[in-house]
């Protein structure tokens, strides 16, 4: 079993996260598919031995979350991974604002490892797991 | 010397704005009158006595007054605003804007201090035994006027933007600092004994920053000028050797960075330019 790797985590908007949010709503399967993913450089995926769609665990000093690995269309960017905005990304982003009001959504030190057999939680499951409500 | 002790009556859950906690506003008042001073607990106008137990002896002038605060004061903001004399001792953590616009006297904090410690300060001394957060000695948004005089000493670490828009005075951080120490600085001195997270002296036009610890890189808008054995901070010699950088050149600045050579061997490539 391959080990995980250290990466820099970015979060941001994507077209699909946008369309699916607008089209079907936040509780839809499409939104879940578009937002509960991590986009990785294909070489990084090879290094940790995951294939398109495999569950991976992304961990930072602020938490960890299981999402699906997806090959980035914006590669090459070795050592940089990307999670679309959304509740999944929030599990691991850095809340520190340095007194500016703005959390550090982009550029967080993170660790990505394969998570075989683990489930990618759906929105309601995720909320319940994180906040005890949904 | 008169000592007045303030203890919170309960644990505050929302911010408490208490600029009246200063020797200047206590001077010449009886304990009863002090208890009538106005504070804000969130959106409720309150009297100081509703939030604090007030004990001790009062005096006529601020010079004679020492205010002791104990308990959890993390939510209490703007303590010592514009104070000119006397003492404030905080046995615990202090909230935002401690000693903002202070002109004289001393404030001592045993615990940590939140952001904007001593912002827009003009005189006096603040000493924090723990850590401080961001904007130590900083400016109000958009004003371009930070600390102009006085001394701030932090025994622990400090956050981002230490000495933002600083024009005078002295800040000493004994631990590490976040990024942007001395951003927009125009005068005064900052001494950092620990490490820096980077971008030190960004946009500075004047003043002096001494860094004893590590830093990854110096901004490209600074140019190396010298390698000095030692430098003076507040009249005392600080042993180096230091790389001396001038900048920030993008602002036509002539601020000086003294960066420890010993802690930063990776900067040795600058030596060929001296």
């Amino acid at each position: 079993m391959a080990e995980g790797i250290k990466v820099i985590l970015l979060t941001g908007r994507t077209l699909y996260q946008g369309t699916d949010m607008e089209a079907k709503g936040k509780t839809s399967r499409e939104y879940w598919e578009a937002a509960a993913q991590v986009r990785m450089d294909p070489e990084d995926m090879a290094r940790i031995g995951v294939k398109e769609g495999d569950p991976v665990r992304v961990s930072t000093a602020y938490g960890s979350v299981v999402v699906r690995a997806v090959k980035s269309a914006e590669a090459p960017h070795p050592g940089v991974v990307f999670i679309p905005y959304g509740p999944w990304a929030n599990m691991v982003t850095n809340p520190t604002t340095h007194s500016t009001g703005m959390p550090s959504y982009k550029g967080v030190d993170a660790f990505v490892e394969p998570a075989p057999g683990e489930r990618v939680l759906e929105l309601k499951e995720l909320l319940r797991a994180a906040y005890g409500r949904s | 010397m008169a000592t007045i002790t303030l203890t919170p009556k309960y644990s505050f859950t929302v911010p408490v704005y208490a600029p009246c906690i200063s020797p200047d506003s206590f001077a010449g008042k009886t304990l009863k009158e002090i208890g009538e001073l106005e504070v804000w607990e969130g959106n409720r106008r309150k009297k100081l006595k509703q939030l604090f137990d007030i004990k001790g002896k009062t005096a006529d002038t601020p010079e004679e007054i020492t205010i002791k605060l104990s308990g959890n004061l993390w939510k209490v903001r703007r303590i010592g605003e514009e104070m000119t004399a006397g003492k404030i001792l905080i046995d615990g953590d202090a909230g935002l804007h401690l000693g903002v616009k202070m002109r004289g006297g001393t404030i001592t904090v045993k615990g940590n201090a939140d952001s904007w410690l001593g912002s827009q300060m003009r005189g006096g001394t603040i000493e924090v035994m723990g850590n401080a957060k961001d904007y130590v000695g900083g400016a109000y948004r958009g004003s371009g006027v930070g600390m102009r005089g006085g001394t701030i000493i932090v025994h622990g670490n400090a956050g981002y933007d230490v000495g933002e828009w600083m024009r005078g005075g002295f800040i000493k951080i004994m631990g590490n600092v976040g990024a942007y120490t001395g951003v927009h600085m125009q005068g005064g001195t900052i001494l950092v004994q620990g490490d820096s997270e980077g971008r030190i002296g960004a946009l500075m036009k004047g003043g002096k920053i001494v860094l004893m610890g590590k830093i990854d890189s110096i901004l490209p808008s600074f140019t190396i000028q010298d390698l000095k054995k030692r430098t003076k901070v507040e009249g005392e010699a600080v042993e180096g050797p230091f790389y001396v950088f001038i900048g920030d050149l993008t602002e036509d600045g002539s601020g000086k960075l003294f960066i420890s050579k010993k802690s930063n061997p990776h900067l040795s490539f600058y030596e060929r330019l001296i």
Partner: protein
Amino acid sequence: MAVLLIKNGYVYDPINGVDGERMDIAVKDGKIVEDVDEREARVIDASGMVVMPGGVDIHAHIAGAEVNAGRLLRPEDHVKDVEPRTAITRAGVGYSIPSTFTTGYRYTRMGYTTVMNPSMPPLEARHTHEELSDTPIIDKASYPLLGDSWFVLEFLSKDMIEECAAFVAWMMWATRGYAIKIVNPGGLETWGFGGNVRDLNDEVPHFGITPREIVRGLCKVNKLLNLPHTIHVHTNNLGVPGNCETTLKTLMCVEDLAEDGERAIHITHCQFSAFLGDDWATMESGAPLIARYMNRHSHATIDMGQVIFTDTTTMTADGPFQYGLHLLSGNKWINHDVETETSSGIVPFRYRRTSRVHATQWCIAQELALLIEDPWKIYLTTDHPNGGPFTSYPRIVSWLMSVKAREEELKRMNRRAVKRSVLPTIDREYSLYEIAVITRAGPARALGLENKGHLGVGADADIAVYPLNPEEVDPSRDYKLVRRAFSRAAYTIKSGEIVAKDGEIVKAPDGKTYWVDVKVPEDLWEAVKSEIAEVWEDYYTVRFSNYPLTDHYLKISSPITRQARM
């Protein structure tokens, strides 16, 4: 509606020739009436007080995109002057760029009831009107910026005056505008590429037209459309030493268009356009030259643009000028170019007594006001907030009324500036009657606001009562009392309601927004419309149908209908 009787005040009503007579003013249904039944009326005892029509400000930037950008730029300006909410008033902030609600309250406290917002980028007119409808109590209107509109430039360059007039009439409706505002004609379009025009005869790149042709063309349009106000001009080269020449040329270039004796042009904040000299080192006052011209001609009016020694925020549609000011001062700078129409810029600025240039500017505005003999030709402004906040008007009143007050100021000013100024030799002092002219009657007349600026029967009952006894107070000596009185009116009455008492707001109704609804011949408009509609999408990023605003944006819409003369 309230019935009011203001008794025994010293009334100054220049339009009706009333000069300090003790008389009663009766109010009913928001209008001045001949008489009311005293038993039904609320009686205001104004004995020992001055009664004037409500103040009319011809030029103050109080709302819209650039004002708001100025607010956003300057938290440090707001933090020193706040306005807590009361049971009647909304919270806000003050100083040089007050928030909307505060603006309404502060004018009201000074006895002002009508304010003209002088620069509205047509594309952002909705913004201006949204802010104005959140500016309570006072009546207001806005001047759309038309001097660099592509359509205007194109029509004028082809000498299609009538077509241009039809377009301008449509613009007045589409933006709910009141008068044609021209700022640095040709210069703003040129600024789109980073340039500027320097002379009335400079050609505007790509358009084959000169500033002179723009001013003359729009002046003709203004006449054709029979608009209540003249063209409202911020000259080329504003704020540049030597611009006095440009200003005089601008005044002269429309002389022949005023053959009927009517007024043809208003030069706004004239102080900024009255500099002599080749550079800042040799800059001096050109006020005597302009005053001499104004004294010999009757086709023009101006306003002062007084500077105040304080920290303020400059903002004009004159993008290149503001960039120059940024370079000069090193202060932060906002630029905002508006496609197809105009530009604007904002720079915080401090006028210092010790600066020779700033002190000279201070003198220029005073010289203009004192050397122009006829007060009906010049009006009191600071070009708020460019010369200083409007809250400093009472100080300006006191300077105009008192040699002593001026001397006090001059004593503390840059020596070299004072030495070269003629101001210390002028002993003219304004009377209360003249003050009433330059602060209400004159601007109201220049604006064509028939029901404003006077207290005759049928006028809007906008009235200011100042706690000043002209029998007892000598303004020349007791100028501080004058200043205090004009800062806090004893009563401000708006549309027949008492809105402020002793400088405190007691009621905050909405004010009206005036705009001009010009009727042009239908067939002409149809022809022009099809022409502009064809190229509209090539010019603008907003659809033609989405461009005009609706009355929804005006709290109280008050159209003034005019018939075009064609």
